[in-house]
């Protein structure tokens, strides 16, 4: 899923300073799962904004709504009946959600309240670990299902670097060494011999070399 973290309150407050009527819009999918932009987080931020305005003697009109998905136009349509009543939308969606809302509603300022941090797995309750950079050329099969681009601080395709200590990365001692994990898993699955092969560099042309990537499925299109 996409993970995100809420921006500092001061940054959000500065972004919406010119506006008095604010529609706070959450997303009930990825960012709800990582406790950054779901219904509960929308209510918390709205509550903070109201308390802050009250503390400073200002008047604000804040409405809360959480869409099932902020990156799908059919869900964004729910904002149409509301949008004329507000000066700005404060979005607790990921970067894709913010841009999708802006695409559908071009005449209102969409202010992002989150910093999108990556594609992650839920490692444990309250802990999300980034493990995919969306490079567009997945080689996980070669690396025992541990992505060296994301999880090795040096992004090595031909590791290990030799700097790990006790199975931990020398760059971030709190993080496990990705190559330690790769070698261990290859060993456990009887594939250690694949370490003898030299892997060519990643094909970054499939990443972002030509601007934003687009997935098209003709069989899914309606026109």
């Amino acid at each position, binding site marked *: 899923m996409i993970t995100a973290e809420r921006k500092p309150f001061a940054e959000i407050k500065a972004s919406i300073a010119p506006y008095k009527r604010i529609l706070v819009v959450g997303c009930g999918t990825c960012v709800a799962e990582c406790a950054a932009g779901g219904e*509960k987080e929308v209510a918390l931020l709205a*509550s903070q904004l109201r308390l802050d305005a009250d503390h400073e003697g200002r008047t604000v009109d804040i409405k809360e709504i959480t869409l099932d998905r902020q990156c799908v136009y059919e869900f964004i349509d729910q904002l149409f009946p509301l949008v004329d009543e507000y000066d700005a939308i404060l979005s607790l969606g990921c970067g894709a959600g913010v841009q999708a809302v802006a695409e559908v509603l071009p005449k209102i300022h969409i202010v992002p309240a989150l910093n999108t941090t990556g594609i992650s797995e839920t490692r444990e309750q309250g802990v999300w670990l980034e493990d995919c950079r969306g490079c567009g050329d997945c080689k996980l099969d070669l690396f025992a299902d541990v992505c060296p681009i994301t999880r090795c601080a040096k992004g090595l395709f031909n590791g290990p670097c030799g700097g790990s200590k006790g199975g931990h990365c020398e760059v971030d001692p709190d993080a496990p060494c990705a190559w330690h994990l790769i070698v261990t898993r290859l060993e456990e699955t009887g594939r250690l011999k694949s370490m003898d092969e030299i892997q060519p560099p990643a094909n970054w042309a499939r990443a972002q070399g030509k601007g934003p990537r687009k997935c098209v499925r003709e069989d899914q299109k309606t026109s």
Partner: protein
Amino acid sequence: MIANRSEAHVAVFFCRQLDPEQDANRRSLEKELGSGIRFFPMPCSGRIEALHLLKALETGARKVYLITCPQGACRYGQGNVRARKRLDYAKSLIREIGLSDDCFEMIVAQGPLPLSIGDLARELLGRTADEPDSSKEKQAGTNPAAYLAK
């Protein structure tokens, strides 16, 4: 401005495992102090959310207490540990907007259980009456506990 303010100046969230007679005990205090105090019994203090605490402030409370079981006495194991983390998070949200986090206070019940939530709340109100006003209370011009003690 915040709408729908209630008269409650003190909100008390508490684990109802503390007091099997909580219904009668809190109601007698509510009757005595009127709408100046509101109790929120919970099946476990671990059910508290930062949003509950902020909403209490939004609706007019100037002091919010969270009363938990003694350490190691939570019948669900980690409830009071989680309650502490949620309260700390709520405090961080309050500090972000420049308010004093004194408005939230966690009270870990001491001594043998059960206790009377009414007696404990009375003790807390007495203690709060002696404390200096927090910045928010000063703005409001009255210390809620002092108000209640009248």
